[in-house]
């Protein structure tokens, strides 16, 4: 499907996934992500949909389906994403290509189910135990959700790993005119399960062999995973940079928060990472041209921490908490940041 449509973000995920060749979806109902499941049951004969007993089952079913050769996806929100973390680590360990959609809502815990948030950023990067190197994409419009969903599938196929597509409750339920622009698809090179004697194990391994007591095997495994994802991520270095003449402040924002940040594009430059992880080196380069860098995000300071680490200097911060995304709040926050740094 191509052309212009009025769609909500969650439907764009479903359309993008189908366009990307989705074969298998396993999920559990959760606000504000359920519409993705609802949309995908409308493709019988094309997408096999399992409504599982929980998100743990969903992610593990996706790992199984992916190893069996399917293009697999699950979709959830914070509480479910928390439950999936061990399974995401499994996906990285056995190199299962799949897409996890997290339509973020206010947390911790049950929080505010119907309100959008951006509190799962660090969980995307470090939520599972041990070392892994996920690719995470975060669009900010319904059109972009469609395209980035396809990119997420492509990145999963190329990296043979779980890729996270972040959205938020605001975008998931946002209806707007969407332009569906297609992206060429990547195909799998790995052989699907069956016909051989491979042993996929969650233990540290070298090839088919468990090496759970060999430090050098683990060091090699982690180095290989890191190199593999870094190489693939370089081909998905998506971001939006809106410079403005004379500006000395660079706003960093993504997802729903970036839509509010656009209000200030006349006075501040804006950098919007779409590839949230691995972090974009381009941001470090661009930030050098600004006296002040201010991160606006819908959490208590997650990406801000990482931006500071990336650009090696303190950054200003405007938290948008409790599902409220208000221009006035950003205005006040900016005023405070200006006072602090003058």
């Amino acid at each position, binding site marked *: 499907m191509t052309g212009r449509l009025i769609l909500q973000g969650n439907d764009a995920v479903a359309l993008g996934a189908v366009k990307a060749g989705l074969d298998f979806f*396993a999920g559990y109902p959760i606000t504000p992500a359920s519409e993705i499941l609802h949309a995908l049951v409308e493709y019988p004969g094309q997408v096999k949909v399992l409504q599982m007993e929980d998100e743990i089952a969903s992610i593990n079913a996706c*790992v*199984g389906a992916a190893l069996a050769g399917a293009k697999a996806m699950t979709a959830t929100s914070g509480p479910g994403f928390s439950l999936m973390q061990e399974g995401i680590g499994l996906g990285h360990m056995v190199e299962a290509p799949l897409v996890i959609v997290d339509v973020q809502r206010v947390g911790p815990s049950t929080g505010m189910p119907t309100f959008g948030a951006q509190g799962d950023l660090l969980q995307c990067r470090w939520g599972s135990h041990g070392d892994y190197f996920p690719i995470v994409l975060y669009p900010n419009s319904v059109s972009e959700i469609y395209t980035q969903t396809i990119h997420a599938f492509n990145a999963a196929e190329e990296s043979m790993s779980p890729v996270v597509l972040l959205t938020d409750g605001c975008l998931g339920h946002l209806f707007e005119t969407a332009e569906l622009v297609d992206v060429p698809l990547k195909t799998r090179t790995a052989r699907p399960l069956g016909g051989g004697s491979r042993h996929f194990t969650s233990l540290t391994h070298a090839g088919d062999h468990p090496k759970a007591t060999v430090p050098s095997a683990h060091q090699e495994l982690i180095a290989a995973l890191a190199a593999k994802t870094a190489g693939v991520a370089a081909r998905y270095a998506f971001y939006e940079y809106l410079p403005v003449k004379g500006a000395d402040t660079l706003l960093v924002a993504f997802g729903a928060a970036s839509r509010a940040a656009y209000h200030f594009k006349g006075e501040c430059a804006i950098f919007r990472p779409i590839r949230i992880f691995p972090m974009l080196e381009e941001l470090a380069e661009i930030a050098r041209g600004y006296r002040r860098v201010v991160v606006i995000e819908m959490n208590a300071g997650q990406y801000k921490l990482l931006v500071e680490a990336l650009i090696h200097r303190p950054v200003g911060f405007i938290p948008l908490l409790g599902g409220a995304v208000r221009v006035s709040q950003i205005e006040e926050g900016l005023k405070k940041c200006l006072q602090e740094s003058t």
Partner: protein
Amino acid sequence: MPARKYLRPERLPTYWCPGCGDGLVVKELAGAFGDLGMDASNTVLVSGIGCAARAPGYFLLESVHGLHGRAVPIAEGIKTARPELNVVIFSGDGDLLGIGCNHLVHASRRDTDLTVVLIDNQIYGMTGGQKSPTTALGVKTLTSPDGNTDRPVDCQALVKAHGSFYARATTFHLPLLGKALRAALTHRGFAVVDVRSQCPVNFGKRLGFKNAYEMLMHFKKAYRPVAGEVDRLGPGEIGITR
């Protein structure tokens, strides 16, 4: 033996303790594959974590050794994506009836065409001998020093509630185990073979059994084979249910 072609002798000796029942179940399953002439290229093994979960590594088949408790959903993903594959699960009592019990119940409801080989030794053996979901009442373990007070999970009741295939055997009654495995593998739909097995090192010794042989002799006395197919197996009965 024809079963050899399904195994990887080069991976021996096995990872398990002396006298462990897991090796016996591996051999019987390979035997059942041979008896049924199963296509190795079309058969996939899946397991979670625990001693029993190491079994797939000894088969010359494609296999997935996943997360603790999650063999069933991994297998459901495989089977749903590729219905032409025979998917067989190896699981232990902790894996299937403890951490993964939710998945067992729901896969049974969905009647996914899977064969689950449950190796039930009534103990968490790998982690040193803690009480498991199937440890009998009153039994002393590392974590029930005054005797277990938790009632054991009734696996038969859980899967028969949805009309799934259920059979029970022991590692003493190997011909019956073979028959149960063959019946489960040819059953279309969700099938569980519940195998009472021995953990001589981390359980039997605490119970006062000198070795694995004594534990098998105990199974011989404690379990009574039931002929034909029955609606339900009573306590201490082994056999195949309808």
